[in-house]
């Protein structure tokens, strides 16, 4: 035990938790922290000019390392600016600890904002340290909660007196976690019974697969079952995209999603069935028809049976659960069932071949579009990035094409936006580069999202973080134009729209904005420029923007 200030206790706690970076934007209330930092050169403070950039960086760093990242924001005003992308981290279950300092607790009568309640809806755990004595235990708890599955963000506030006051502190890191919990054996039994007799099984993968490093286990299960595999979320590589049984994404809560999932007699989903994108009126309340047997595996007990009636709910680490299920299945499944499974794989393979062929035709038809098509741009990009590249995507309307063109197969090869808030990509790409200093990091970001946190370029330049930012520049909030088209068609039975608030009168000149903030930026209209530009950007060892003007 040593007597020290609360602010020093904070630093020592961060070091004990192996934190390297503090992503932040300081204000007067954070001065004690900034002053203390001068004595801790091991902690690298990365200044961002808008808080969303810091959240993006912290998010990807944590998603790659699996360890909680740390963000320092300013009282209610800075903290509020981080909530939008904190929501994304919460939706996706990213382990991170965000913090903000508050006024002295002794001045309560004057009035102060309850920072804890502000962010409670978006955190697993949220508390304010009002006395220096509390520093070690609350910091430890915040990190512990962040990294205990289901992982997610936590918040710690610091009142001014807690930072400057002194107390006897015993700093100890949150310990090693033993998180690979196994399922209730009866749940496995019931699952195996259902699956063994299934004629048309469907697996649904979510990000929990990637988080529990259980891609191989899912593949094994899918293959033994001959199951079609959908992704309810694919912001991490949850299943190899080239695998013949992978059939693309479904949106839980949508009519189309319900139809697809209900086409199976048994559905086994791993991870959260996320409905954040389901925003129109009159959604499907049932995600899957009731006559389909629904099995749900997740390490988050509150997700199991939450809103969809569930036949078998399995609370467990997915890796352990899937291993047990597959083992039991290989014994339980009859010879003919296994044959039938193989037969299903054949059909799915054929279906996929046809789909790829159709996709090939789509690609051909858009190949020479002028302005460039999404598909052409992504194709050129895919063929020019090095093998070991890590890809980040934050381009809503390009997502489907991106998946078909890049066809990610390697765990950790890519990260996509999740949660719905735009503005994640630029910060996210920089965090990814910090996590992978020796690999090329290529990000594909929509123009609307880039503009939302365009301040990121200042940090990229100042800290020389050499990520490549490819902008899908189509001069619109394209996802909203698509949404308006659907709305008009299905809800209003109309056809025309003027797309108020969704069209940019002139394309955003993201390349110029980047250059003016100190990042090399190039506008590209000719697809044959893409390959050489990527090479030049990567060779420079500096951040670069490739602003693709699309039609």
């Amino acid at each position, binding site marked *: 035990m040593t007597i020290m200030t609360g602010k020093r206790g904070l630093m020592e706690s961060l070091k004990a938790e192996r934190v390297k970076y503090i992503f932040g934007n300081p204000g007067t209330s954070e001065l004690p922290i900034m002053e203390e930092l001068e004595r801790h050169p091991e902690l690298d403070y990365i*200044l961002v000019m808008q808080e969303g950039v810091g959240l993006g960086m912290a998010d990807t760093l944590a998603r790659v390392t699996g360890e909680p990242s740390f963000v320092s924001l300013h009282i209610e005003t800075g903290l*509020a600016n981080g909530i939008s992308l904190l929501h994304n981290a919460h939706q996706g279950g990213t382990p991170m600890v965000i913090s903000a300092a508050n006024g002295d607790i002794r001045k309560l009568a004057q009035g102060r904002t309850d920072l804890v309640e502000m962010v409670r809806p978006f955190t697993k755990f949220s508390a304010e340290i009002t006395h220096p004595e509390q520093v070690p235990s609350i910091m430890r708890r915040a990190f512990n909660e962040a990294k205990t599955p289901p992982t997610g963000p936590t918040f710690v506030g610091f009142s*001014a007196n807690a930072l400057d006051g002194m107390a006897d502190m015993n700093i100890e890191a949150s310990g090693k976690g033993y998180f690979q919990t196994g399922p209730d054996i009866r749940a496995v039994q019931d699952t195996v019974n259902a699956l063994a007799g299934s004629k048309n099984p469907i697996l649904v993968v979510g990000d929990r697969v990637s988080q529990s490093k259980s891609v191989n286990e899912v593949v094994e299960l899918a293959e033994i079952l001959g199951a079609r595999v959908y992704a309810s979320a694919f912001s991490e590589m949850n299943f190899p995209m080239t695998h013949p049984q992978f059939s693309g994404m479904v949106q839980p809560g949508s009519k189309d999603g319900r139809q697809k999932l209900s086409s199976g007699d048994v559905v086994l989903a791993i991870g959260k069935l996320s409905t954040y994108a389901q925003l129109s*009126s009159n959604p499907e309340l049932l995600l899957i028809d009731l006559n389909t047997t629904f099995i749900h595996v997740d390490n988050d007990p509150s997700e199991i049976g939450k809103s969809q009636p569930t036949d078998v709910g399995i609370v467990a680490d997915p890796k352990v659960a899937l291993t047990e299920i597959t083992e039991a299945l290989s014994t339980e499944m009859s010879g003919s069932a296994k044959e039938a499974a193989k037969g299903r794989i054949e059909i799915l393979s054929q279906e996929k071949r046809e789909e790829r062929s159709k996709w090939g035709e789509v690609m051909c038809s858009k190949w020479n579009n002028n302005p460039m098509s999404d598909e052409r741009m992504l194709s050129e990009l895919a063929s020019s990035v090095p093998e070991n590249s890590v890809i980040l995507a934050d381009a809503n309307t390009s997502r489907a094409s991106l998946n078909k063109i890049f066809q990610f197969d390697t765990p950790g090869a890519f990260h996509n936006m999740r949660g719905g808030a735009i503005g994640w990509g630029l910060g996210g790409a920089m965090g990814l580069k910090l996590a992978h200093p020796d690999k090329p990091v290529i990000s594909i970001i929509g123009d609307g999202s880039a503009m939302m946190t365009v301040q990121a370029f200042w940090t990229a*330049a100042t800290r020389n973080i050499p990520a490549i930012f490819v902008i899908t520049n189509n001069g619109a909030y394209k*996802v909203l134009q698509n949404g308006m088209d659907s709305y008009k068609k299905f809800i209003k039975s109309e056809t025309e729209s003027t797309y*108020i608030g969704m069209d940019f009168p*002139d394309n955003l000149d993201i390349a110029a904005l980047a250059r*003016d903030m100190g990042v090399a930026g190039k506008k590209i209209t000719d697809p044959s420029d893409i390959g050489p530009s990527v090479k030049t950007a990567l060779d420079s060892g500096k951040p670069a923007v490739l602003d693709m003007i699309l039609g």
Partner: protein
Amino acid sequence: MNTMTGSQALVKTLLNEGVKYIFGNPGTSEVPIMNELESYPELKYILVMQEGVAMGMADAYARATGKPSFVNLHIETGLANGMSLLYNSFFGGTPLVVTAGNKDIMEIAHERTDLANLVQPFTKWSAEATHPDQVAGLIRRAFKEAKTPPTGPTFVGLSANALDGNTNVEIPEAGKHYTHIKPDCKSIEDAAFLLANANNPILVVADRVAESDASHEVIQLAETLGSQVYSSYYSQMNFPTDHDLYFGPLRFGFPDSKNILSKADVVLVIGKMSTSFYMYSNADIQFFGETSKLIHLDVDAGNVGKSQTTSVGIIGDPKISLGQLSGQVQKIMSAEAIQKAQNRSNTLLIENTARRNASKELLDRKWNTSPMSPERMVAEITAALPDDFVLADDAVTTRAAYEHTLKFNNPGSLIGMRGGSLGWGMGAGIGLKLAHPDRPVVAIVGDGSAIMTIQALWTAAAEKIPILYVICNNGSYKILKQAMNTYKTMIKGSTKLDSKYIGMDFHQPSDIASVAKAMGVWTRRIEDPNDIQIAVKEALSLNEPSLLDIIIDGSI
């Protein structure tokens, strides 16, 4: 009674409230609203690329027009992005109505964010319409709450089914409001007694004075009493800054301000007492000396007597209350007291003259420095400003330089940042110009704040709004460097000012002019003060947005 959708009920209610602009950034949940707007060209949607810009615009527009403004953001993600500057509006008491779409209420078992709860800490009133019949009534109430003193922001969430479902509800008219409340007579009597007999009275003004158009009443009272007048954070024209009795801003809670106030035996404060970002660790809650008697006048009953020992709390409309107070003071002031007041006025004139001379001397010393001093910059800008200027002030450290040359004595000529959140100024400039299409509008913005909502420039260009931005470019969060020095000396008792200022220096020079140009704005980068006047005049003659990126000294 007509059958209409919730979206239609929303739009019709807005028209009844006299709303002209919708400041916003839409998402999928707002598509029903965007669709409805296609039938109402009289409502102009001003698109922003980052929600803070919409909040700044709405704040300044409401303060300049005196009527609640309207904002539409996207579910929790867009709404959260607006919260930082919503805090500023809440702190300052700006009347505005924020809305956001939400998921269909049926989805409550899946997951759904409680939007009303999310912004509740920063609103006077917040609710969500989960049924189409509720829409009109909730929107009308939101406007009512926003404009009823003490004014402030309100929020209404709009679930998808409320927007798309049908309703037969009648759309109400906006209704008249009678808000000029008279104070308790005894409070006026007791306050007048204290003031009339005071040996050293001080008046402190805040925005509530400007909002009730009471600056003349304050002048009258101050002159009757021969009292010094200070301002709590000066963010509207509350008192003419060139008046002989005006002695500048006070920072409640800071030692220097406490010293000043402790010398007064009676202090009259009108409005909210801003602590000017006093966020240091300190248990002392009292702003005033132990022997000072505080009279606090405000229209916000919750603010009067909140944390300070208050001798007389006056709850009422400031204009009416001050008029009554002056009348009562004049009635009861003895001949001796009147003489003392006169003596005080004479002494104060001498003091203020000395103060102004010191100010002039400082200006002279800073006239030819390189890099340019903020004082020189402000002097040059002032010389080029037409008399009828309106200023959006978001220059936290540069504003100290105003006192030498830039005077505010025209009501409504200043709308300043309040609350402390960065990013207000860029949006505010646009809102202020929309409110004053026929007057020259200038926004003076610190570089840190400008960068925080730099996306505002896109809107200024896209909407062709001829606002002139002046960026105080000192390459740092200078306020924090100053505050760090204060922290070191005042709290840590250090004698050395040797901080590394981690996180406060922009090591890369910010080329804000070029960034603005890339968004379609006319720009000039200025390092020589002699170039300022011409640039200001040229910019103001254009009919498009403009930005002067002025490189000034950042040393502390």
